[in-house]
């Protein structure tokens, strides 16, 4: 009786334990797999969230700052997209604050890669680059070569205004000055002194003088503004110091 049971009982118990254990094991395995999958998903989601931080605030600040800098009414522009060279040289942090830089949004402006002004020190952030013209203008004075009575002179320049200084010898009276075929100055009693003359910017500057006697070189001096424009790349960097952004280059 008991002999017949004794070998049976442990075996059946063992088999029952084994079965219970195997279900438990598969349960543990299932839970582990689910947990690992969940953890993996969370890592992926975390990565995705990091990628979505693209710094819209600094992007929009950089866009509007570059817009304002090249706008006609802006601190350094003479007309839309044309910058004044001397204003550009004296671009200050106050100008940058006027176009949107704050303590939070650090800003730097570079021309052809050289930083010319900055608020703070943006080490990264969003860069907006745009092509602009830089206009430099300087006063040029010329003393044209004049020979004889009714002389004329042609200068290889186009400009909309010249300053004419007429200082004729006492024996000569200058009665009329023409530019092209247009009379720009006329005085039967004699022209003498400094005059502002409007000329055509669309044709080469030429001046003809009507005189009663001979003029000599040095009796007439011409001064005008010579403008020169260079194409540059204006880069505006804005770094949002309050929120982390997706890196990026600075200039």
């Amino acid at each position, binding site marked *: *009786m008991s002999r017949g*049971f004794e070998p049976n009982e442990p075996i059946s118990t063992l088999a029952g334990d084994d079965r219970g254990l195997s279900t438990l094991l598969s*349960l543990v395995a299932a839970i582990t797999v689910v947990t690992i999958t969940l953890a993996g998903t969370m890592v992926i989601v975390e990565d995705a969230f990091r990628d979505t931080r693209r710094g*819209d605030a600094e992007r*929009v600040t950089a866009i509007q700052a570059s817009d304002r800098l090249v706008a006609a*009414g802006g601190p350094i522009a003479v007309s839309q997209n044309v910058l004044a060279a001397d204003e550009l040289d004296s671009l200050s942090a106050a100008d940058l604050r006027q176009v949107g830089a704050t303590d939070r*949004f650090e800003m730097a402006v570079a021309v052809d890669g050289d930083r010319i002004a900055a608020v703070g020190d943006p080490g990264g952030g969003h860069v907006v680059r745009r092509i602009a013209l830089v206009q430099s203008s300087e006063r040029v004075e010329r003393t044209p070569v004049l020979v004889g009575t009714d002389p004329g002179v042609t200068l290889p320049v186009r400009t909309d205004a010249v300053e004419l200084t007429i200082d004729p010898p006492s024996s000569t009276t200058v009665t009329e000055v023409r530019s092209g075929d247009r009379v720009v100055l006329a005085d039967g009693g004699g022209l003498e002194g400094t005059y502002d003359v409007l000329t055509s910017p669309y044709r080469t500057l030429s001046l003809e003088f009507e005189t009663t006697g001979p003029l000599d070189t040095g009796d007439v001096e011409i001064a005008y503004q010579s403008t020169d424009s260079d194409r540059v790349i204006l880069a505006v960097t804005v770094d949002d110091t309050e929120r982390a952004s997706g890196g990026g280059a600075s200039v």
Partner: protein
Amino acid sequence: MTRGPKRGGCGWDRDRAVSAVVGKSLEAGIVVLYISTMVGVLYGGVVPEYQATTGEELGERVLAESVLEVQTAVPADPEATGTTRHQLPRTIDDEPYRIVASNDSLRLVHDTAAISTTIPLRLPSDVQRVEGEWRSSAPAVVTVEQTSSGRVVRLEAGSA
């Protein structure tokens, strides 16, 4: 002889039937406990954090779009006026919000402090001031009006 063990087996069998129920209930209990723990962990910490991050990012984008919209709504010509419609998401992080113009900047006002943010707004120099506010629940327009001292940009509800 054969009856004895059968009887004993009969009692054991009854016990075994109960053990299956106990075992299954235990497994079910473990699964329920696991799921509830995971739900607790996810909704207790992870999901709200994701919602907050999404809300912050969405808030920044909405405000940035609004700044660009106000920028483009103001024509370069100082004589020009106009009205431009703007689209706003109804809610951010399940809450309505406002976009307020003040002190040369646009500010997003939201119940969650982390979503509230400010972006400076710079308009052409002839624009005197920017005023008004948008509510996310109402249609939004930006109007540019001429006054004696210059142009005024106004954020308001309405249709264009």
